[in-house]
């Protein structure tokens, strides 16, 4: 089986689209949130919106690791980059996010900071072993998917007795973010934002399994369908959500059965539990302070904790006032509602984090939606001319 092509088959996609078109209730709207940036990316890259009826509205969620990183933590990274003799190891996407005063890791690199882009935590460990005279700091960010590899290098560093390797831990937890969104006053009390169901995370769920979502389905009566990141996965998940909503069901269903088990990857979970513990609270960009939503390194591994070794201050820095990333990440606002969208804030010069990563709602919308609107506008004026 060819795993790339098989899940991108246009003929199958049209079949699912036809089913969706038949099964939807034309008298109602469906508001579905894809939590993960990976899904946002798939939706824009494959043009999924073109295959959906107009009354299905996709809301881009906060599941984009670089989008939710708060400014204070980013500032800490810049502080680390300024320290002499420090080598920072970072995943690619993170390098471009601008701080409140316009710095970014990429700019720090241009100014001479030693910042290396890596593909895996193991590379950071290798760099530490190769450069015993330098302090090597791995900037660990991401949801559950990237957490186990961070735990693994911390354990390895301990076994190797490395004294020049630390991890700056910014790992966050998906279920806490979803409950926070569902408990937000806009959704729960004020009813300002309609949210009918969730496309559940793909890679995150391979680690945590499908069981943790049962709570949302029951408590908030919202259906969840866990789906892979391929476009056919997304289409199938949308069909499954429509069916649940039409039947008034609110269950957790798993479309991504080829990778997700009900209880996930127990080995990875044990590894994470051994090295990390819950933070009482953690700031998310856009969501604010969310209780028990992030991890920190346990005290018996504190030798490998950058926060501990470099005594990094806890900073809380407000977003640029004009930036609506916060409301966009909660699904309260649409990218086009932001005054600086596409003007002061573009993928070339991002102000807000949602414009930085291709997983971010604004970047996806900038690339895709802007052109759709221009096209609609063209079609309308074209029709008016006739």
């Amino acid at each position, binding site marked *: 089986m060819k795993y*790339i092509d098989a899940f*991108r*088959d*246009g003929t199958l*996609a*049209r079949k699912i*689209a036809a089913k969706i078109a038949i099964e939807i209730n034309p008298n109602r709207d469906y508001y579905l949130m894809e939590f*993960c*940036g*990976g899904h946002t*990316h798939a939706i*824009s*890259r*494959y*043009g*999924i*919106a*073109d*295959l959906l009826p107009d009354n299905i509205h996709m809301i881009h969620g906060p599941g984009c*690791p*670089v989008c939710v990183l708060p400014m204070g933590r980013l500032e800490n990274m810049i502080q680390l980059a300024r320290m002499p003799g420090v080598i920072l190891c970072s*995943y*690619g*996407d*993170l*390098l*471009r996010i601008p701080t409140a005063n316009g710095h970014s890791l*990429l700019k720090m690199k241009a100014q001479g900071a030693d910042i290396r*882009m890596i*593909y895996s935590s193991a590379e950071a460990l290798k760099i530490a072993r190769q450069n015993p005279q330098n302090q090597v700091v791995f900037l660990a*960010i*991401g*949801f559950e*998917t*990237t957490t186990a590899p961070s735990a693994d290098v911390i354990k390895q560093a301990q076994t190797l007795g490395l004294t020049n390797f630390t991890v700056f831990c910014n790992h966050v937890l998906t279920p806490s973010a979803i409950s926070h969104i569902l408990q937000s006053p806009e959704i729960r009390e004020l009813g300002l934002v309609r949210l009918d169901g969730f496309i559940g995370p793909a*890679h*995150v769920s391979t680690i945590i399994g499908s069981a943790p979502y049962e709570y949302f389905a029951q408590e908030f009566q919202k259906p969840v369908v866990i789906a892979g990141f391929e*476009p*056919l996965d997304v289409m199938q998940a949308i069909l499954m959500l429509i069916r649940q909503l039409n039947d008034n069901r609110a269950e957790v269903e798993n479309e991504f059965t080829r990778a997700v088990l009900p209880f996930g990857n127990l080995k990875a979970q044990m590894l994470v539990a051994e090295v990390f513990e819950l933070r009482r609270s953690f700031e998310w960009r856009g969501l604010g302070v969310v209780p028990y939503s992030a991890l920190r390194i346990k005290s018996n591994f504190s030798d490998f904790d950058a926060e501990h070794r470099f005594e990094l201050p806890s900073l809380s820095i407000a977003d640029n006032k004009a930036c609506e990333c916060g409301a966009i990440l909660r699904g309260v606002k649409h990218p086009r509602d932001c005054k600086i969208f596409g003007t002061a804030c*573009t*993928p*070339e010069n991002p102000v807000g984090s949602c414009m930085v*990563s*291709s*997983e971010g709602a604004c970047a996806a919308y900038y*690339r*895709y939606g*802007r*052109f759709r609107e*221009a*096209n609609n506008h*063209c079609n309308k004026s074209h029709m008016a001319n006739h």
Partner: protein
Amino acid sequence: MQQPGKRKTVYTRPLDFKKGRVEMAHGSGGRAMTQLIEQLFMRSFDNAFLSQMNDQAIFPGYSGRMVMSTDSHVVTPLFFPGGDIGYLSVHGTVNDVVMSGAEPCYLSAGFILEEGLPLSDLKRIVESMAAAAMEIAVPIITGDTKVVERGSGDGVFITTTGIGKVPEGIHISAERAKPGDKILVSGTIGDHGIAIMLAREDLSFYGTLESDTASLHGLVATMVRTAPDIHVLRDPTRGGLAAALNEIAQQSGVGMMLYEKSIPIKEQVSAACEFLGFDPLYVANEGKLIAICSSEDADNLLAVMNAHPLGRDAAIIGEVIEDTHSFVQMETRFGGKRVVDWLSGDQLPRIC
């Protein structure tokens, strides 16, 4: 000290191409520099213009229109599957020259060498350049060498300039794309960028994927003979197919519609792109071209391209449409549409 009068012939030890390294003296204008020029550059590039040993090359001119293009080459690693910086420095400039439909005539080469570069590496690179120039019968007629201190360069940087002559009646230019024109690409995209990336990251599990670096002069010559009214030619190097098409759309004030299913991509390239989080449309090519021509010319042009070794996998990948926004759009294999936008900054891999 030796008395000048007593000196008859000075024995100079030949350059040690096995163990020797580039030293500051190789760029300082003294005997060491002359030695490097004579024993390496002159021998390899061997032609009558260069052996005049002047600070400039004097060459016969042509009547009619001529083209000139210059390109600097920096690449890490210097050697990669399918080529090296030497081949690249000749192919890159020759391709820029021939994208006007021109016949390439002369090349120049400027080298910035980093102190400490093994002479064996330099020799290999210079021999690659000589081979690439020989293959297309375009002499490297003048050059320059500078040496920078260790740490100030990346081994070697090479700037080449090419001059060519444009045949009568050929008017190929990026502002000539018109609605209704067909867009063709000469082969699989992304091979060079991914080959370099895999070599750089030491990811060898995709088997052998080679850079597509090649001179396109022969292919262009046959294309121009078949369809003299080709509107646009462009080699999609940095920024890949997406950047080149956006530039053309902007310059011509038109839109484009691509068909994802028609764009030739090697399976290893799409697999590596998946793994690295890249979009192959934005990955560099060094031996491919984009052609835009009228729909009447398209089939004939495709046939001659397919008959040429460097155009075997050529395909019609889309068409030019009217669009005041100059959007490049693509009908995805999946059945939707999306914008193929300009690249913002470098392609950076996503996290999850």
